[in-house]
């Protein structure tokens, strides 16, 4: 199938060479799998896998007003960052939902990089520009300038460490630093979205394909968005458009720690108590999907936001948004094609790395 209207990352041809099946995702033509979802999932859980996440957006904020601006548009405390450190953060809307969930990396003094979800790049940019007004800083959309590779798995650090001058073994979680990887100048971040240790590697767009090919040749398994989704679901990570949106109170999630006591855009609505809570469900056999109704004592109390059969656990798992009053119940039912199936509540995350 041709996807002519979809955007392509600089690695598009490399994905086709690697035998990827391509699907539309957030306006992009992306690899959903190569050899197979389960094998790719397992490679990341037990060894090392690599994802092309170049479709994600990168915005740069530079100048004396950059910190104040980022403090204004996000609820986490950006002043706690230092050059070489990164954190997870949000872009709240004034209406009570999230414009996006993001990562902020402090690259240097008065120099920050924000990574945003692929499908939200244009929306985020407009939202941030509308707030930028009087702040003494420059914001630049660098989304086309970077290839971003997520190299993830228990052997990610040891594998990459052989190929770089940087000390990846000693690097701390959420650290961000420059290094030479094979023949390429890159930035490493010890971050990820799989529930495993790993690095995200920023390389200049024009060098991305050569680096990707070299890492594949070094024995790292390519992994697609299919495995990325099952990995993040097992790890209990919310995905924008599923667990977060313009309409979902972000404090329904287990991420209340993001919000610090400081002034920021959207705080008024954030301070209201959420009416729903995000819970984990497990089922015996039947997979449940986004949108399926969640029932308690015959009443519809919520909806599945993400669901799949867990490749690691071997049974179906799901995240669901349910009414706060129902959230402590142990035994729910999920309606699948008109029939109700038992679903037990379980703690998030479903899986924790050893």
């Amino acid at each position: 199938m041709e996807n002519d209207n979809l955007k392509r990352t600089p690695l598009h041809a490399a994905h086709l060479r690697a035998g990827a099946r391509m699907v539309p995702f957030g306006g992009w033509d992306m690899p959903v799998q190569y050899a197979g979802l389960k094998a790719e999932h397992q490679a990341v859980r037990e060894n090392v896998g690599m994802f092309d996440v170049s479709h994600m957006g990168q915005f740069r904020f530079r100048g004396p007003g950059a910190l104040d601006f980022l403090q204004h548009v996000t609820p986490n405390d950006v002043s706690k960052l230092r050059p070489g450190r990164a954190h997870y953060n949000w872009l709240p809307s004034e209406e009570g939902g999230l414009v996006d969930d993001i990562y902020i990396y402090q690259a240097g003094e008065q120099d920050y990089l924000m990574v945003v979800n692929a499908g939200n790049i244009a929306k985020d940019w407009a939202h941030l520009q509308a707030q930028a007004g009087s702040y003494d800083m420059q914001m630049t959309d660098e989304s086309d300038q970077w290839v971003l590779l997520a190299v993830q798995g228990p052997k990610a650090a040891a594998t990459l460490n052989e190929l770089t001058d940087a000390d990846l073994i000693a690097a701390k979680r959420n650290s961000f630093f420059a290094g030479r990887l094979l023949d390429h100048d890159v930035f490493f971040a010890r971050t990820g979205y799989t529930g495993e240790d790993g690095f995200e590697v920023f390389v200049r767009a024009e060098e991305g394909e050569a680096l990707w090919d070299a890492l594949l040749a070094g024995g790292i398994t390519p992994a697609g968005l299919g495995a990325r989704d099952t990995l993040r679901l097992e790890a209990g990570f919310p995905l924008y458009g599923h667990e977060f949106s313009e309409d979902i109170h972000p404090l329904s999630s287990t991420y209340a720690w993001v919000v610090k006591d400081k002034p920021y855009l959207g705080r008024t609505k954030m301070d209201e108590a959420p009416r729903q809570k995000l819970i984990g469900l497990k089922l015996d056999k039947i997979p449940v999907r986004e949108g399926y109704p969640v029932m308690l004592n015959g009443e519809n109390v919520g909806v599945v936001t993400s669901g799949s059969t867990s490749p690691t656990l071997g049974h179906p798992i799901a995240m669901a948004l349910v009414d706060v009053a129902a959230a402590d119940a142990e035994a729910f039912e999920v309606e699948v094609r008109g029939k109700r199936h038992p679903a037990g509540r379980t703690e998030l995350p479903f899986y924790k790395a050893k």
Partner: protein
Amino acid sequence: MTNPTELKYASSHEWLAGDGKVGITHHAQDQLGDVVYVELPEVGREVTAGEAVAVVESVKTASDIYAPASGKIVAVNEDLEGSPEKVNESPFEGGWLFQIEVSEEGEGLMDAAAYEAENG
């Protein structure tokens, strides 16, 4: 994998055998990826060609399976309850889904050559 010439094929990727057995093609299982659950119709149910009568779930997604013929469901593949991966491993044999006592075949069923032409 070649599509057996003795089967008939629907453009929605089901195959129909002479004895009324129904499954999905190698191409379909390859597109779906790892099958983790199969929901089969009740034996004795009367179905109409084109009606969604079963669901094959992969890790990624749930796909409706349409009856390629009208008639009565006379058997289902109970092995799939414990081993849904048979749909991937053996789509034309051990991974069959259900059997119809055919009263009338659906319109537009194709032979193997025509199905392959449609699916490149």
